């Protein structure tokens, strides 16, 4: 295990070199200034831990904390050349390399998150100079501290709610009073009238089904949000062709660890509440979805 340096931004390490070996700083996130050596050691302990293809596995420079007032930026020195437009574009061709970069980023953020609140940085944030980072942190110092306060002890959970629309449609067709009346009329109608009634019934069922799916999603979101410190709806995935199952809700919840078990129970009871519903969820995550938004609110 390598030794970890804690550097004060005010002191400022040497200015970046020029040429192909010029170094920059890859930012993982912002946390409180605190003894974090243990967290960084865990984060750095994984095999093949690299940021990009900067160096062979295991040879990367250790993570560092750049301290600024009450904050600390979790960074790693990287070669700027590895983050040039051309290299980034080339890297897109390899899913394996990109996936490892994403996982590496998450591994560091998770390790800190397990010990104290962290505001994860946007993936791929590289600063050419620690003074740039300091100038970016400066105006937001107090707001970032308040954000960290809000996130302390909380995890993010991802929830996907799917509905089998055929099941919901069948229920609507059988139970909706207006549609039942139309069907009674349809049975007694002459062929010409029956044709139009049939069209009308289809339209009514479809509209009522859409409405029911929106209500189911909204109700589920509201119920889960009761257990959460904050919640947000994310755009759901597109509906695949011919897929009866539709993702009706994709949402992120910021949940205090104290009530995580209750939140999970809530997820399960959401599914139990209606026929044809299915739910995938993942967590606990560091609060990725709540880092940027809270920053806006804190200003």
């Amino acid at each position, binding site marked *: 295990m390598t030794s970890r340096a804690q550097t004060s931004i005010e002191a400022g390490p040497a200015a970046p070199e020029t040429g192909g070996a010029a170094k920059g700083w890859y930012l993982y*996130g912002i946390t409180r200034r605190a003894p974090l050596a243990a967290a960084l050691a865990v984060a750095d302990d994984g095999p093949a831990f690299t940021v990009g293809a900067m160096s062979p596995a295991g040879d990367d420079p250790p993570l560092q904390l750049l301290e600024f007032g009450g904050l600390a930026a979790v960074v790693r020195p990287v070669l700027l050349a590895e983050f040039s*437009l051309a290299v*980034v*574009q080339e*890297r*897109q*061709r390899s*899913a394996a390399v*990109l*996936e490892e970069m*994403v*996982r590496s*980023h*998450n591994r560091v*953020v998770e390790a800190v998150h397990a010990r104290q609140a962290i*505001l994860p*940085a946007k*993936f*791929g944030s*590289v*600063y050419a100079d620690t003074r740039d980072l300091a*100038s*970016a*942190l400066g105006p937001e110092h107090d707001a970032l501290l308040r*954000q960290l306060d809000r996130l302390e002890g909380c995890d*993010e959970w991802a929830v*996907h709610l799917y509905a089998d629309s055929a099941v919901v*449609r069948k229920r609507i*067709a059988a139970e909706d009073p207006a549609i039942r009346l139309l069907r009674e009329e349809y049975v007694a109608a002459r062929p010409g009238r029956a044709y139009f009634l*049939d069209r009308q*019934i*289809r339209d009514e*069922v*479809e509209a009522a089904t*859409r409405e029911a*799916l929106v209500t189911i999603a909204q109700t589920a979101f509201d119920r889960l949000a009761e257990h959460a410190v904050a919640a947000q709806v*994310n755009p759901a*995935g*597109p*509906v*695949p*062709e*011919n897929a*009866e199952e539709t993702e009706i809700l994709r949402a*992120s919840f910021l949940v205090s660890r104290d009530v995580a078990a209750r939140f999970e129970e809530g*997820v*399960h009871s*959401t*599914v*139990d509440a209606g026929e044809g*519903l*299915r739910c*995938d*969820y*993942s967590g606990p*995550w*560091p609060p990725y*979805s709540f880092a*940027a938004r809270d*920053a806006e609110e804190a200003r």
Partner: protein
Amino acid sequence: MSDSAARVQEVTLLDLLDRVIDHGVVLAGDVTISVADVDLIYLGLRVLLAPVERLPELMSTERDLEPSAVGCE
């Protein structure tokens, strides 16, 4: 744990991408040199890592809910 609410691994990778790449705090001022093309990386990864059967869904931009049949019998 019931069958219909699952804490699943398959969804975890997409959730990971949704979170790590698409979110995170961006500090004021534009002094970062390399958050450019993050959107491209995101799209590239989503397509590259998605199971084959999900590709059409990921590559389509918008599609309405199109029910295939309506029960009115």
